[in-house]
């Protein structure tokens, strides 16, 4: 048993951890798992569980001056990431991000913007959900817990941004990282499955935008004054869609 040799002799193991391992091993012995576990024992690291924390507030900064009208790279990136079929009817298929082209009524200036869930701080969809399936994570990401969503669509009635989609039909071939299915509501998750597992990961839309050399979408922690997104907001400024509703959105637009 290689592990016990290591532990007893100390070897190159730092002192304190031997005790911890011993204690854990006793615990395992009690469970009768000893033999099975021993072989791979030394290879294992105690992985710290990192839960979403309210120290952070994830958000997006969208620089409309860098976003171009014909480009839908962010939409394609999102669809690809979550296995969304964009070939279906535009009113019944899922639309986590959409592109909207605008002309200013006064100046005639044209702009183009991606619109997705705005990850409101005081989110109307969260307030109205009868089962609490629509919720805001500690780090500000607004999500649907599809395990408790009953598909009543009240959140869609409440959303000022038309950002949520109801799944109207049976789906097949979902991506392992993006479970989706008929009868529940869904919307942009800020790619939690990516950003949770690796601090350097970006949501798929931001990656696609950068790949297209536009870099119009910046993802980051709004609570961290040194993050790219906070610096951008501080230097160039950003506004909220429907700021009049005072929802304190996590998605901010520059040049709207």
């Amino acid at each position, binding site marked *: 048993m290689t592990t016990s040799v290591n532990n007893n002799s100390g070897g190159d193991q730092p002192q304190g951890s031997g005790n911890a391992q011993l204690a*854990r091993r006793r*615990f*395992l012995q009690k*469970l*009768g*798992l000893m033999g*099975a*576990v021993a072989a*791979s*024992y030394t*290879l*294992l*690291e*105690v*992985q710290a*569980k*990192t*839960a*979403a924390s309210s120290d952070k507030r994830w958000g997006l900064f969208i620089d409309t001056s860098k976003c171009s009208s014909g480009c839908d790279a962010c939409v394609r990136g999102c669809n690809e990431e979550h296995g969304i079929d964009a070939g279906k009817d535009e009113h019944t298929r899922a639309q986590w991000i959409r592109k909207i082209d605008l002309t200013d009524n006064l100046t005639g200036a044209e702009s183009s913007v991606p619109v997705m869930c705005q990850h409101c701080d005081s989110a109307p969809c969260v307030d109205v959900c009868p089962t609490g399936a629509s*919720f805001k*994570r*500690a*780090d500000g*990401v607004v*999500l649907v*817990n*599809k*395990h408790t969503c009953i598909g009543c669509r009240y959140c869609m009635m409440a959303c000022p941004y038309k950002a949520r989609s109801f799944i109207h039909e*049976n*789906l097949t*071939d*979902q*991506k*392992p*990282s993006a*479970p*989706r*299915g*008929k009868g*529940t509501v869904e919307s942009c998750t800020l790619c*939690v*499955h990516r950003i*949770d*597992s690796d601090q350097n990961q970006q949501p798929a839309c931001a990656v696609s935008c950068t790949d297209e050399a536009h870099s119009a979408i910046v993802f980051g922690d709004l609570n961290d004054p040194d993050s790219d997104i906070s610096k951008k907001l501080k230097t160039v400024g950003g506004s909220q869609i429907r700021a009049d509703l005072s929802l304190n959105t996590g998605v901010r637009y520059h040049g709207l």
Partner: protein
Amino acid sequence: MSLRLNLALLILPAALLLVMPGYADDNGPVIPPATYGDQCVADTDIMRKEHMSLLNHQRDETVIEGIRGEPFSLVSCVNCHAQNDNGGQPIRIDAKGQFCESCHTYAAVKIDCFTCHAALPEENAVIGSLQNNLPVASTYSNKQLLVMQSHKVAHKASHDYQRK
């Protein structure tokens, strides 16, 4: 005894045998072996009895708290337990006779998980590393085993399962 009663007595057990083959010759469900790994993410016996509560617990931890890379992830079950067909192509884990289905059909349990969750393993799954570096119960057990104990209630049916 009238002839009719006699006949009925004869036919009834025969009919029962026909409609309930499982009970007539009950050696438990035929569960396909795991494709990867040489042990499960927790003791096999615990997995048999407690996988539902473990999965539910994991589900809430991941979805609500954003905790990832945990052993009781549904994706990982599929990665190890989905079988390959003769051509080496993976088979849906909820297909007839496959890992989750075989046992559940036997126990008359229906799950809807795979209407949303992928029933096929991840393409370039971390199975390779799982195989070598199994995230076995040891590193995670303390908290999870407490969870298991707190859930040790109604799972009477599952106690009897024997793997063939």
